[in-house]
């Protein structure tokens, strides 16, 4: 083995650096933020086309990197958990646009309540019903039931029902992405031009990812999406506990 001394030193140094990076949350936290910045830039360059969803692009980039470096999800999540944690405070932060638009919300109180009850029940029972008809097992059904509410709430509810919290989180994200991609063409096809109705629907169906899409389109739509997301989190928690009492 003839190797230049300098060359092996470089290899050793790189290996040392990798050992350090692999053990610290810094690398994967940075990767998560950088992937999002890149994904958001791409989405903006494509004029916020519904199919160019920033969550899909960012997650795709990160998964590629994890596979290439043979890194497990647990290691990744040690860094990413700081971002994931902010989902909770973000729900609390919905108080700000809610208060700002309280007059409009008050005016629409009756449609909000009617649409919430109809939409929330449709979300839970249609998903569980269709998957049950297609032969999905009980733990998958339990992870599917809360798929329209934001991740931390859905993970807790899935656990109550005997589902798998991390699988529920995947269902939640997929539902969010599907809703964000579908909402604009679907609402145009239905000829619904009321931004309150459009926003509220995507908030109820697709929580924060839907709300993020709504905020991209229109501030009023975003606010109503936030309200839909918050209220549906509460109502789904109630529906799921009823479902749990019946099933378990």
């Amino acid at each position, binding site marked *: 083995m003839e190797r230049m001394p300098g060359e092996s030193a470089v290899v050793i140094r790189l290996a040392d650096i990798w050992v350090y990076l692999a053990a610290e949350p810094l690398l994967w936290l940075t990767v998560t933020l950088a992937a999002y910045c890149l994904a958001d830039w791409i989405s903006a360059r494509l004029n916020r086309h519904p199919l160019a969803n920033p969550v899909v692009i960012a997650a795709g980039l*990160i998964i590629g990197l994890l596979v290439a470096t043979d890194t497990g999800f647990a290691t990744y999540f040690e860094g990413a958990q700081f971002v994931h944690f902010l989902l909770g405070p973000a729900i609390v932060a919905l108080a700000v646009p809610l208060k700002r638009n309280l007059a409009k919300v008050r005016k629409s109180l009756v449609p909000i309540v009617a649409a919430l009850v109809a939409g929330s029940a449709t979300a839970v029972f249609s998903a569980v019903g269709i998957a049950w008809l297609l032969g999905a097992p009980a733990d998958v059904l339990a992870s599917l039931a809360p798929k329209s509410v934001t991740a931390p*709430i859905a993970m807790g509810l899935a656990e109550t029902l005997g589902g798998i919290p991390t699988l529920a989180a995947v269902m939640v994200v997929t539902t969010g992405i599907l809703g964000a991609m579908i909402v604009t063409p679907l609402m145009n096809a239905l000829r619904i031009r009321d931004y309150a109705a459009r926003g509220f*629907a995507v908030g109820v169906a697709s929580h924060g990812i839907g709300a993020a899409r709504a905020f991209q389109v229109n501030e009023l739509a975003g606010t109503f999406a936030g309200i839909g997301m918050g209220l549906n989190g509460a109502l789904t928690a109630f529906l799921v506990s009823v479902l749990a009492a019946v099933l378990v």
Partner: protein
Amino acid sequence: MIRAITLLLVCQLAGEVLVRSLGVPFPGPVLGMVLLVGGLLVFKTSAPVLEETADTLLRNLSLLFVPAAVGVIQHGAVLKAHGAAIVLALLLSTIATLVVTALVFAAVSRRMAGRSGDEAIHGEDAG
């Protein structure tokens, strides 16, 4: 900004503690949101720092879902076995939920606007 983040966390914490001590199946952060709206109304404060922090967080909501989305790599086995059923259920259910929610919202608000003789609130008259 630190004050604003602290306030958000205090509300979330209060929500979580209340929900658990009352034993009700209600999401803690949602109760935290209700508490914060209540607080803002009672004290009639308009804190620009809070608005700025909240708006920044909400403008980047997509980012917060990225770690959960990457979690898909943990569930290869389940998705291989039931992926088609799951994707079909999620797709059809999401379409159904969007359609039902939007149509009920639009129909009820149209009926209410008609009854009170108000002008259409959200510009439905545009079309």
